[in-house]
């Protein structure tokens, strides 16, 4: 008995294949995002954890000015500390003849002979140091690839004011530099201009005059150790060696970026799929509701034949589950494919020895189960209605549609000017309010997704624009490897091509307000300077600080400081004194968390008249590259950055990574808009086939008849655009609040162009759905439709 019902099932699915496919596709979007995100999440997290474990990623990092290696023994006595390694860290400049802009290296020492150490390297090519280890270096694998360097080649490195040629013995990756970022304030890795240079301890000791000394201790802790206490103990012991305040893994830059990404993935793994599956369930609900209504007679006949109500309810449930299953299969396949690509994209940003992509059957199974659940949810009402139908009732024809006058008709003036097509449209919308609401909702959702995807690009543009227009006005920025006096500035001013130059002093400090403390960089600015702008939240310029401090808004929030408050400043360099300063106000910036003071104040804090460690300058455009080359050959220069170049790299990297997101989001938005509109129009068409056929018989053209449906869709789309844009703006606000971290913030921008683009794209989706509907109308069989009552 059930057999023949199953046959009916397949025939029905086939008859509404367009609608079934649309629903399956919406489900597929949900499941594919679910699978993609979870697989990527598990892949990234699993890879990170394994990588950290195998290479013994440190839990604690404690930089100092200079301390004997033997202190490591004292540190190991601290409760919870399992292992400690002293090492030497120095920033150096790398001179590559083939490129004009300078490259930077971070020297990091490793034992002379290979051991299982904390923060070990993962060798990709070449080998470890020889017994001698002199003038040997292992460089970052990505940097080597980018510049065509391989073991056996040599590189020139300016270390401790001397230029030395080092021989590359190997290339490697490190768990500390999965995200190859130089310092706070950067957001994107720059593996082209920045690399780690691993050297043997004995070689590093001799180069930097660090006999039996180290300037950083890294430690691995017991799993149950209390990090906070361990850090305090480190600070206590290392204080007399110029400790810069130890920090835990969670504050390590590479780790933070990586972990933020992983957490972000986890967060979106539920929201996105839930939206799509919810929409799919709604559309299914409508479709099956309509199906039960038209099949009342058939249901009654089956009931009369003795089919149980259960068999009949199951029939509709199965119909829905079949769509759910197809959607889940498509979604899983696409999701796995996306996940693979996403992980590949991650290798652009994150450097792992291998990025594990594994088809996790649990994730896929969960996806399938969830989609079946939502499909069943969409079918429940229809199944219940079918089961409740009494045979006698079903055999009576359904009452004709009852229409009422609509509110629009009260405006006689307008109403009398509307043709009957628009009258039909209005009355139908009012009659089928719930379906109209679904269409409007789908359109709104689709619009908001498109707007959101455009927003992320707009926001990035805005950020870069803001930096260029209001914050950084320099062409080049030169960083020295230590504090200098005014002569260094004059020396740069005298170079050919320099139009103007301003000194800057950056100090590492710890700001303390009660129990709240934060390690930051504080920028000493020239009172008369114009190359570094400071702005308030309305983008009005702020006076440079005189005697007190300006804090970025986020930093002020974190430390609970406001204008007029006093804050303790622990200078982490020189004589390491503690001062008290007044907060003069806050500045608004999108990158990093920092503080600003006058260069005079900062110089005084380090005990100088005027000290500086970097210079911003304007240069003749045509001499810029030449100047950069000249600057990087100055012995004390640690770095030179060309603003234009930096922002170009930034833009390109972002654009590449966002292109995929754009495409995927547009696709998703399209599936929702198309799926919802197409489905509800198909239902409307089925309900009103007779009406349309009789119009055709009267002599209306296909186009005129189609207009009744397509105009309704355009009207509903236009209505849906309004909440859609509103919802989109809300999403953007949400995004910019969620990403309000001390590393990075999304500027909230609403561009009219983006609103217009969203509108045009959604109208385009509606047009596509309407074209598909037109095709159905063209195939409308007049004779058949009018032959008899259903």
């Amino acid at each position: 008995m059930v057999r023949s019902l199953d046959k009916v099932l397949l025939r029905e699915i086939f008859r509404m294949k367009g609608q079934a496919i649309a629903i399956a596709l919406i489900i597929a979007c949900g499941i594919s995002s679910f699978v993609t995100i979870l697989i990527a999440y598990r892949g990234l997290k699993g890879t990170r954890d394994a990588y950290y474990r195998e290479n013994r990623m440190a839990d604690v990092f404690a930089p100092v000015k200079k301390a004997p290696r033997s202190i490591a023994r004292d540190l190991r006595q601290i409760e919870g500390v399992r292992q400690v390694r002293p090492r030497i860290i120095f920033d150096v400049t790398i001179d590559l003849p083939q490129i004009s802009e300078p490259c930077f290296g971070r020297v990091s020492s490793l034992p002379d002979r290979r051991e299982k150490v904390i923060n070990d390297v993962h060798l990709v090519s070449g080998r470890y140091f020889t017994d001698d280890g002199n003038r040997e270096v292992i460089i970052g694998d990505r940097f080597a690839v980018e510049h065509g360097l391989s073991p056996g080649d040599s590189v020139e490195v300016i270390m401790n004011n001397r230029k030395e040629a080092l021989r590359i013995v190997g290339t490697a990756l490190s768990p500390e530099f999965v995200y190859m970022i130089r310092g706070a304030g950067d957001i994107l890795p720059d593996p082209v201009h920045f690399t780690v240079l691993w050297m043997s301890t004995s070689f590093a000791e001799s180069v930097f005059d660090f006999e039996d000394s180290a300037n950083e201790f890294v430690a691995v802790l017991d799993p149950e150790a209390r990090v906070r206490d361990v850090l305090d103990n480190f600070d206590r012991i290392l204080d007399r060696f110029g400790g810069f305040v130890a920090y835990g893994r969670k504050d390590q830059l590479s780790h933070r970026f990586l972990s933020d990404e992983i957490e972000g993935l986890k967060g979106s793994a539920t929201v996105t799929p839930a939206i799509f599956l919810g929409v799919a369930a709604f559309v299914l609900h409508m479709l099956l509701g309509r199906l039960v209504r038209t099949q009342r007679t058939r249901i009654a006949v089956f009931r009369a034949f003795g089919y149980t109500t259960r068999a009949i309810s199951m029939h509709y449930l199965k119909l829905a589950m079949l769509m759910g299953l197809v959607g889940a299969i498509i979604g899983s396949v696409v999701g796995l494919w996306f996940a693979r690509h996403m992980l590949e994209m991650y290798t652009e940003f994150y450097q792992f020895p291998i990025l594990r992509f594994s088809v996790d059957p649990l994730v896929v199974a969960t996806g399938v189960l969830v989609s079946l659940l939502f499909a069943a949810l969409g079918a429940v009402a229809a199944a219940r209605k079918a089961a409740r139908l009494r045979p006698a009732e079903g055999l009576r024809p359904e009452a004709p549609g009852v229409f009422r006058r609509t509110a629009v008709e009260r405006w006689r003036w307008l109403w009398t000017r509307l043709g009957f097509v628009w009258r039909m449209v209005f009355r139908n919308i009012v009659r089928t309010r719930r379906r109209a609401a679904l269409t409007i909702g789908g359109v709104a959702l689709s619009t908001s997704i498109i707007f959101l995807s455009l927003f992320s690009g707009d926001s990035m543009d805005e950020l870069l624009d803001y930096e260029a227009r209001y914050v950084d006005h320099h062409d080049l920025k030169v960083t020295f490897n230590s504090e200098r006096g005014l002569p260094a500035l004059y020396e740069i001013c005298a170079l050919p091509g320099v139009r103007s130059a301003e000194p800057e002093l950056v100090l590492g400090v710890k700001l303390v307000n009660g129990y709240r403390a934060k390690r930051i960089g504080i920028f000493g600015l020239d009172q008369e300077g114009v190359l570094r702008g400071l702005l308030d939240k309305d983008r009005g310029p702020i006076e440079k600080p005189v005697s007190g401090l300006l804090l970025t808004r986020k930093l002020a929030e974190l430390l609970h400081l406001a204008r007029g408050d006093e804050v303790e400043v622990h200078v982490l360099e020189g004589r390491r004194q503690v001062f008290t300063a007044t907060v003069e106000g806050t500045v608004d910036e999108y990158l990093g968390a920092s503080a600003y003071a006058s260069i005079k104040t900062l110089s005084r804090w380090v005990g100088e008249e005027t000290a500086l460690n970097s210079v911003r300058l304007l240069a003749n455009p045509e001499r810029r590259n030449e100047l950069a080359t000249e600057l990087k050959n100055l012995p004390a220069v640690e770095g030179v950055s060309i603003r234009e170049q930096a922002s170009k790299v930034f833009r390109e990297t972002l654009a590449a990574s966002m292109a995929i997101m754009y495409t995927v989001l547009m696709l998703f938005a399209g599936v929702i808009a198309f799926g919802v509109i197409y489905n509800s129009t198909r239902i409307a068409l089925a309900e009103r086939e007779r009406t349309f056929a009789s119009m055709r018989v009267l002599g209306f053209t296909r186009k005129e008849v189609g207009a009744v449906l397509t105009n309704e869709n355009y009207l509903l789309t236009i209505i849906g655009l309004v909440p859609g844009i509103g919802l989109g703006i809300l999403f953007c606000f949400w995004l910019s609040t969620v990403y309000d971290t001390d590393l990075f913030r999304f500027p909230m921008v609403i561009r009219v162009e983006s609103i217009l683009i969203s509108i045009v794209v959604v109208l385009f989706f509606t047009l596509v759905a309407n074209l598909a509907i037109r095709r159905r109308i063209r195939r409308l069989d007049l004779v058949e439709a009018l032959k008899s009552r259903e």
Partner: protein
Amino acid sequence: MADPLFTVRDVSRIYTMGEVEVHALRHVDLIVQRGECLVILGPSGSGKSTLLHLLGGMDEPTSGSVRFRDQELAGATGDELTEFRRKHVGFVFQFYNLVPSLTAIENVEMATEIAPHPRDALEMIGLVGLGERGDHFPSQLSGGEQQRVAIARAVAKDPDVLLCDEPTGALDYHTGKTVLSVLETVNREIGTTLILITHNAAIAGIGDRVIRMRSGRIVEMTENTHPLSPEEIEW
């Protein structure tokens, strides 16, 4: 009898459903004169509706020729047929097929909007005796009233021919009679050619000519020298 409106020559209509061929019409010849009232009788499945659909440009013959005045309908494009229906044909069906979302008067206006020389919608509603009910939606009208609105809608275009497929089939005796007299009025007073399908031999009395069909063929044609008015017939 020198003004033929339709000239049907050797028309066959074959429906193919997989292996099976259904011959709905077999070599039919027929001439319909302008202004006449033609009644088509025949058992179920004999091809009455098929013939009517061919005349009304809703369907096309498998072979043969269907001419409306000088225009060949066999082989015309979909757009040409739409144009033809728009200008020349009014249909009335057994089930009234009104647009449920439009009021009675709006249903009639819908037709007048597309016709080249439409009649006044209000006048047509009056003609079918529903002057008071123009503002009602189809769901608020009885079957007979709905059928009268359908006739008003068909006539409002001022068509050359009114094609009616069992217009009284779903109505009771009295309502059926009312509808028939409306049709007769249209035929006699406005002069619209009327072609009417019925199962009911009694109704055949109102026709100028009656054709009987069986198995896709016209098997008999009779002329009524004295057609009856709807009031005179009984069934």
